[in-house]
């Protein structure tokens, strides 16, 4: 029986004594989109790395087209027709689209020089066959993330991949870009390509995938046709229990205005942004990626200086020119990019948590270990950070735990205004629910929260009020009762043609 294009049997894998995969089995048919689902740390990434030969299994076997195979590195698997597109895209920023597609495998003339004419001709043909419109001579660094993905997919197809693995491809795409990606994925499926699709967004998987395999804590849980499962069924399989309330927003009567932004402008990124944020309120800031939401947050936090407009914190007009000053005013900012702006991955949990408050744990610049350690420990416990000890390095934690460390860091500054930028991106369902519960609790305690999010269910579920930005301007404001998915999308994407989402 050769209906399995790829089959994994009883795969186990340990790293330094810790078993991360236990007897996992998995099958893939030609022409299907197979979702791989599990919380962070469930072993999805390790499984992918075993399929692509980056890691070798300790136990179990891999069959490709019915034949046992052994990949000793990623090159082997690529030659066997398996291509993977990871979350971190890996294009050469200074090469153009066509060069990237054929990087390392450029067609060569007899004289040993690169055959540029052939390179561009073949790249053009390939993109046409995929139905992707891109300028072949555009440098990769100027492409949007969605466009970069298209190039990676094209690259995968230039080596005749039969199996395409996509690890969270949609986490930083706008709604329209996701649509385009799905169109492409369906087209590939129709041509017989098997696709392993990893995503935390259940709605997407329900819409796109044919079958789903769920992993939990490194073990295989089940494989089902997508038609036979529900959203809650999937969540139950992933977390091993039922999460009843995904968005546990408590009702709070908002207090006085603590942050008032008037006509805030930073030429080139956002214009005349005005809003008010009240004590105990969660204000959702929705919009497409690139609408200027993060820039507004950075301007309020003193990282990017606004060119015009006014900011009032607790009734006082302020000019915030550095994060230091923002922290002193009672602001905290949990940034969008954990690795780059939120954490110091090579330092341990304690140092990460205590960093903004070091002055409080010191006398005349001299660190008092005990106080620092105690506060960091309490903050970590309060956030329920899962780690061996508070001396574990931040980079060794899973994404959800890293986010908890970042939150613990900012909550230890006892902020009165908390700006959360994509607080649950790339985080598993269980942790997500915990973070939502925490947000609700913080709001109830009187903290004013500005939540930037690209996930509509999160915006709709958590916000007391929603404002929407498009192209650097506020284009809509809704109360919790008024806000609907349709209204937000329409405010975020009015006049789609002018934004240029065409790929």
């Amino acid at each position: 029986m050769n209906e399995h294009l790829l089959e994994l049997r009883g795969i186990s894998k340990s790293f330094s004594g810790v078993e991360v995969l236990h007897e996992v089995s998995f099958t893939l048919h030609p022409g299907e989109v197979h979702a791989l689902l599990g919380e962070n740390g469930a072993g999805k990434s390790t499984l992918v790395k075993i399929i692509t030969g980056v890691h070798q299994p300790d136990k179990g076997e891999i069959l490709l087209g019915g034949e046992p195979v052994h990949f000793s590195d990623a090159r082997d698997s690529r030659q066997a027709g398996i291509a993977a597109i990871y979350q971190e895209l890996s294009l050469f920023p200074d090469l153009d689209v066509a060069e990237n597609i054929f990087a390392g495998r450029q067609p060569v003339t007899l004289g040993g020089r690169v055959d540029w004419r052939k390179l561009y001709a073949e790249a053009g043909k390939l993109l046409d066959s995929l139905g992707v419109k891109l300028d072949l001579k555009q440098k990769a660094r100027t492409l949007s993330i969605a466009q970069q993905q298209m190039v990676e997919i094209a690259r995968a197809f230039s080596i005749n991949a039969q199996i395409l693995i996509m690890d969270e491809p949609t986490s930083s795409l706008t709604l329209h870009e996701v649509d385009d990606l799905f169109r492409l994925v369906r087209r590939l499926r129709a041509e017989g390509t098997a696709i392993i699709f990893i995503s935390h967004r259940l709605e997407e998987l329900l819409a796109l995938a044919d079958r789903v395999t769920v992993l939990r804590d490194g073990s295989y849980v089940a494989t089902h046709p997508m038609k036979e499962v529900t959203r809650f069924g999937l969540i139950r399989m992933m977390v091993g229990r039922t999460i009843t309330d995904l968005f546990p927003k408590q009702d709070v009567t908002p207090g006085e205005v603590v942050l008032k932004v008037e006509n805030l402008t930073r030429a080139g990124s956002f214009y005349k942004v005005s809003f008010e944020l009240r004590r105990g309120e969660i204000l959702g800031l929705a919009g497409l990626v690139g609408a200027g939401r993060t820039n507004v947050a950075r301007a309020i936090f003193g990282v990017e200086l606004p060119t015009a407009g006014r900011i009032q914190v607790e009734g006082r007009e302020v000019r915030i020119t550095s994060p230091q000053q923002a922290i002193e005013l009672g602001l905290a900012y949990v940034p969008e990019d954990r690795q780059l702006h939120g954490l110091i991955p090579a330092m341990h949990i304690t140092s990460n948590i205590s960093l903004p408050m070091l002055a409080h744990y010191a006398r005349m610049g001299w660190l008092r270990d005990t106080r620092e350690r105690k506060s960091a420990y309490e903050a970590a416990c309060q956030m329920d950070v899962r780690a061996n000890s508070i001396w574990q390095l931040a980079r060794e934690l899973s994404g959800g735990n890293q986010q908890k460390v970042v939150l613990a860091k900012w909550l230890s500054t006892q902020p009165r205004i908390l700006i959360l930028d994509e607080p649950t991106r790339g985080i598993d369902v269980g942790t997500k629910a915990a973070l939502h519960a925490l947000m609700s609790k913080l709001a109830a305690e009187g903290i004013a929260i500005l939540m930037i999010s690209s996930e509509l269910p999160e915006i709709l579920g958590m916000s007391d009020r929603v404002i929407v930005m498009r192209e650097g301007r506020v284009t809509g404001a809704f109360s919790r009762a008024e806000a609907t998915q349709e209204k937000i999308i329409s405010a975020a994407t009015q006049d789609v043609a002018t934004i240029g989402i065409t790929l």
Partner: protein
Amino acid sequence: MTQTPETQSASLIKEFAPRRSFLADFQRWEWLLVLLIVVVIVANTRLSPHFLDARNISRTSSDFMELGLMMLPMAFIIITTASVDLSVASNLGMCASFMGWLFMHGVNIWVAALAALALGTLAGFLNGNLVARLKLSPLVVTLGTYAFYRGVAYVLLGDQAARGYPKAFTYIGQGRIPGTLIPFSVALFVVLAIIFGLILHRTIFGRYTFSIGNNENATLYSGVPVARVKIILFTVSGFMAALAGLVLAARFGSTRPDIGTGLELAVITAAVLGGVDINGGRGTIVGTVLSLLLIGLMRFGMGLLNIQGQVQGIVIGLLLILSILLPNIAQQISSARGVRINWRSALISLGILAVFVLFFLFFFWSRAPVIAGG
């Protein structure tokens, strides 16, 4: 990008973790340096009867103190910026020359010395401002001031030498702590090394140093005055270069404008050999002090054996390459369970090194009778 497998700790942090011991900070690298130092001492004691002579050691030790004084802030700069201050030796030359020039024009030597310290500090502050405020690369900035400061030294002194410093001043470079064999400059270095070590490992400033070196953006977002930290570092580096200039001028008893030329590379070598990660974010003062000790002992031992200075340089250079290569290979091997080690490039590097070593041995062997005076 290699990712460490996520640690599957289903449990939350239960226990109040104990305070980490100092030995945990004392990384493996420092122990390797201690081992090398022991090897060098044992080997040299067997090769030369003069090696363990206290007077000899006392006299030689002060040769390395200028290097040591500049190495301390250099360690901070490498950790923070993953780059180096190339201008330290030129700054040293400028300050020593400035002091000599003032002295020749009749200024009191102590006033001149204070003025030189102020000049060096100012020069460091200039470096720091260019790096932190204008966001220029430290390498480029200090490459510029490297030429500039040395040029000022030549403009001040031309082809003359300033000499005739009073005894009270040359004591800084030549004198000993009364009643002991310990040179004053060594005592000065030890005190400063302790101060720098405590600052790096026990204060907020030191923590900022490490966290900027590991992730400057996240540190900035956490409200740390990143620019100010950098300016302070380069300013201190300038001050220490000037201080080293005074010590060196006092040791020589004179100042020529080329004083200390080329020392910056020795300073960087000592810091990197001491385990300061050239990619930033890691390093200890203990390691750099050990590495200074190792370099000093090796040079001293080879000097006693009448090995030429250039050959000594080759040995130190090889040691540096090995010190970077070995931990990398060791790390590859230890982290390579299942992952293929890049044996080929490792072997190639080792092969090239072996060629160097053979060449050096051949050279040494053929010249040994001459060098050894036989």
